[in-house]
């Protein structure tokens, strides 16, 4: 068995991500723009629902920009998880014909989506500045925050990809779970005093802070939308969840890998 040094591992990841990006937008006119267009469309939909029908969005200034700030990372999170869930099954012939570190398959899906997110965030920042939401110094914190988000997402992706080999239900279940998870996350509402007004339950707001993605959303809103320093709880939440999911993901993947290869 050939030994996989870190440099070669990096090259493999790079190649898999490049393949993913190339393949995804073959024969598509708008191509790469879809990663921005999808959250933009959902932003428009949510904007009308929550300002014209449910009417709580009015309490938040520039509600559409607030929405977009949360929708972009959510789109990264949900796309990464849906794509990586079937990543081992989709590549079963490859896995059974040559040896390579298989963790790279779900990890590459997450990384490909991360590249989309980075570009989308650039566009978001331009939009925000246009509408007078100037970034503060806190903008530099986006890098560690993204790193932690990627670590957390990869950890969950590893767990899901393994789970789906044993039970195909995982793929169906994750879709429903993501739908519920979306509404349980501070994307269409904030977790501050306005959020308490909307939800009308301070206790529920406190509980929602334990949502693994809440910390990152809070950091996003602080850095991009409000231009302030993110609160401490968001960092504690994000980093603890990241470590938990990454360690669990790697441990489960390592343990299950020899069995999974034969099950595929």
């Amino acid at each position, binding site marked *: *068995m*050939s030994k*996989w040094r870190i*440099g*070669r591992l990096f*090259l*493999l990841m*790079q*190649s*898999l991500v*490049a*393949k993913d990006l*190339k*393949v995804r937008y*073959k024969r598509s006119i708008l191509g790469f723009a879809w990663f921005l267009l999808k959250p933009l469309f959902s932003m428009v939909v949510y904007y009308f629902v929550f300002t014209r029908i449910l009417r709580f969005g009015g309490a938040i200034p520039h509600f559409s920009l607030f929405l977009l700030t949360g929708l972009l990372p959510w789109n990264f999170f949900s796309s990464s998880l849906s794509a990586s869930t079937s990543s081992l099954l989709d590549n079963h*012939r*490859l*896995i*059974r*014909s*040559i*040896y*390579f570190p298989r963790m790279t398959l779900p990890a590459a899906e997450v990384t490909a989506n991360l590249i989309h997110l980075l570009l989308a965030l650039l566009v978001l920042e331009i939009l925000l500045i246009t509408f007078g939401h100037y970034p503060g110094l806190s903008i530099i914190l986006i890098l560690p925050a993204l790193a932690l988000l990627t670590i957390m997402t990869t950890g969950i992706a590893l767990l899901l990809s393994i789970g789906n080999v044993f*039970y*195909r*239900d995982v793929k169906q279940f994750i879709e429903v779970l993501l739908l519920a998870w979306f509404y349980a996350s501070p994307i269409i509402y904030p977790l501050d005093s306005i959020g308490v007004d909307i939800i009308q339950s301070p206790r529920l707001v406190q509980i929602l802070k334990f949502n693994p993605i809440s910390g990152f959303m809070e950091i996003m809103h602080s850095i991009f939308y409000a231009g302030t320093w993110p609160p401490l709880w968001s960092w504690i939440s994000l980093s603890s969840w990241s470590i938990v999911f990454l360690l669990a993901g790697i441990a489960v993947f390592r343990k299950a890998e*020899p*069995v999974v*290869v*034969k*099950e595929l």
Partner: protein
Amino acid sequence: MKPGGILMKNVTLDYRLYHDRAVTLRDTMLNFFNRKTRIEHFRALNDVSFNIAPGSSVAVIGSNGAGKSTTLKILAGIYKPTSGTSESGGRIASLLDLGVGFHPDLTGEENLMLNGALLGLDRNEMKKLVPEIVEFAQLERFMDTPVKYYSSGMFMRLGFSLATSVDPDILLIDEVLAVGDVGFQDRCYERICDFQEKGRTIIFVSHDLEAVSRLCRRAIWLHEGSIKMDGSVEDVLSGYIENVQKKHIAEAATPTEWGTREIWFDSVILRNTDGTPSGTFRRGEKIVVDTLIKSRLPSTVDNVVFGFSIHRIDGETVIGTNNLEMNQPLLSFRGSVASRIEIDLSIAEPGTYLLGLALTDPEANKDYHWQEFFYPVTLLEKRKDTPLKLSEAVWIQE
């Protein structure tokens, strides 16, 4: 471990075997509550040990399901042994399934770079190899075409060239040499011979015993997951072939004869359509069974059923019928009678079969004379046109 060396020590590998596999969560829950979890283990390899010196070419032979491919997968690092250890030195290239890492939407060149990364090569190494791979696969004109537009032969050729281009210390080959046209196959063999000359280790799994004896000097015979024989290719192959044949003979049907013999087959001659006695029949020819049947019963016997059967040499019944079943006249005679069956077969699978004959009276519940597995008949394809035809020949004396 020296590059090219392989050491397998007491390797055992179990697969989980599912009878009624619970693939959904609901099934698992139901099975769990019913205490009916039916997971069984199938031992694909059982305590397999061998040591291969760098530079040798070793064949792994055995019937289907003997564990040959599993052995290669363990050597390639794809499967981890359930117990025991497998060690190898140097870079391994496996020809287990060609072109698996290729993505249909990527071009030939893009796919080569991606696969290089999967094989663990760095970009510069790969860039240097690409021209050579392309040349060997003879696909220079198609490198910027997505591989989904390749013919299956082109696809396989690219896969083979790629897998063998990395100059491995150990090359694992699993029955993939039937690649492309005859010309390309020859070059594949040439390339494998080059590897041998360069002192690389080759592990070759194949059912093609001729190729095995040509390429390898040592052979390992796996039987139901264990090593049955390990030695020089001549010894192992002759042992293997003998064993396969012995099984055939043991299972083969031996001629048997029984009955009351009140009525019996006095003589039986098989003839072909033009009447010459023969045991070989070509497609489209009738088998004519000429019999003389005698009776020692004092009175005329009526309603004698005359049947025949055709078995494969392993004893499996192919055809069994009689004049009663086919609505043909039954025999009615006293003393002796000449009776003939003309059998017209459509031959799907040429080969040797065994013809049997029977005289019975089912109404009286009597078996007069049975001859089972008695007359071998060889059924052949239609003869091709003779390669030469004489137009004219002239003898002249001057």
